[in-house]
């Protein structure tokens, strides 16, 4: 292996996002409409407008995260009495009924993971923007973590889907999905797209350019 090890960009190569083929970038500025010779995916040196897109999505998700937690997730009617539950009151209900395992699963999937994901993305965006050299390997690992873990926040949306299907016991009890379910699902979708639009190679670019 040649030393020091080179990156694709330093050698003027483009790596296809979809099939990972290495293609030679033309020297002209006509980078806009390049497609992968093997799979036809658009080729970019880095994901286009990665920082701006990710920022926009992170801000949108943060705003929507508030109604998702404040508004009711489910509305349960039992024999004339109506009970309104938010995500957090669902967690508290399980703690009181002694189901610690389920309480922690819901807390982790619905409250901790979305918050942690937003915090990690903001940290990554800020460190890239300020061209930080701080622990690039750990920051890349954090990025991979957000990609893998983010989907699990859909859990509560599915729980609500199953509850509304099961609890339709005539006049005795019904459960309806509350407005928070929609906000919450939107937060999960937006943060998934945000993680996808962030380009972790930007973390390493600052190190090479300043070297």
């Amino acid at each position, binding site marked *: 292996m040649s030393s020091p090890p080179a*990156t*694709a*960009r330093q050698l003027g190569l483009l790596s296809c996002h979809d099939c990972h083929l290495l293609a030679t970038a033309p020297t002209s500025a006509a980078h806009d409409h390049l497609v992968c*010779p*093997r799979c036809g995916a658009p080729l970019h040196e880095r994901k286009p407008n990665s920082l701006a897109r990710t920022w926009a999505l992170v801000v949108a998700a943060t705003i929507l995260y508030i109604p998702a937690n404040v508004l009711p997730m489910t509305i349960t009617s039992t024999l004339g009495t109506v009970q309104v539950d938010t995500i957090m009151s669902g967690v508290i209900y399980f703690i009181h009924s002694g189901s610690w395992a389920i309480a922690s699963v819901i807390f982790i999937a619905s409250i901790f993971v979305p918050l942690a994901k937003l915090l990690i993305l903001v940290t990554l965006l800020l460190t890239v923007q300020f061209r930080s050299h701080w622990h690039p390997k750990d920051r*890349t690992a954090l990025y991979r973590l957000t990609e893998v873990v983010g*989907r699990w926040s859909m859990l*509560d949306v599915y729980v609500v889907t199953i509850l*509304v*299907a099961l609890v339709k016991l005539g006049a005795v009890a019904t459960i309806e999905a509350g407005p928070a379910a929609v906000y919450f699902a939107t937060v999960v979708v937006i943060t998934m797209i945000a993680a996808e639009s962030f380009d972790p190679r930007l973390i390493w670019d600052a190190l090479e350019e300043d070297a």
Partner: protein
Amino acid sequence: MHVVACHDCDLLNQFPDKAAATLLCARCGAVLYRHRPDSIDRSLALTLGALILFIVALSFPFLAMKSGGFVQETRLLTGIRELWRQQLYGLATLVLLTCVLVPLGQIAGLLYLLAPLKWDLPAPHAIRVFRLLRHVAPWGMLEIFMLGILVALVKLGKMATIVPGISVFAFGLLVLVMAAAISALDPPLLWDRLDRRR
């Protein structure tokens, strides 16, 4: 030897052509290649299994709830229909996509890719299908729905008797078989076999 650029840090890594191992990026530790023996046969067999399990999961009763004199029986799609009835159209569509349409599409797409490779048949637009499969993969969320079933069971277990149907067991198996089918894939091998420039 061949050269691979790391998708996470852009470092060029040099790897032997036929490595029976997992290969990591030398700088950031990303997994760049996982060896998958008999990839096409295995993922084809597992995908067929997934298709059968999915059909079973869709056609039999899913869960039934007994409380007092009432019995409420549901199927896999009941919850989605109920969300639609409550005018939560976006939410219903999202659940339908992530738990039914995307996984079914993945199964169909994999069969379309793998069967022609196995028996050397022509498959027009196979490359486009494979690209699409890679893009929709994070949106198939069967395993999360399965966890949702468990949470819902605990939640309702105190107020009613829940009777799991055949469909739930098929669904549980489907989650495992589907995960196995996807992890048996060897994407670099597939891209190479599908490459029309050769």
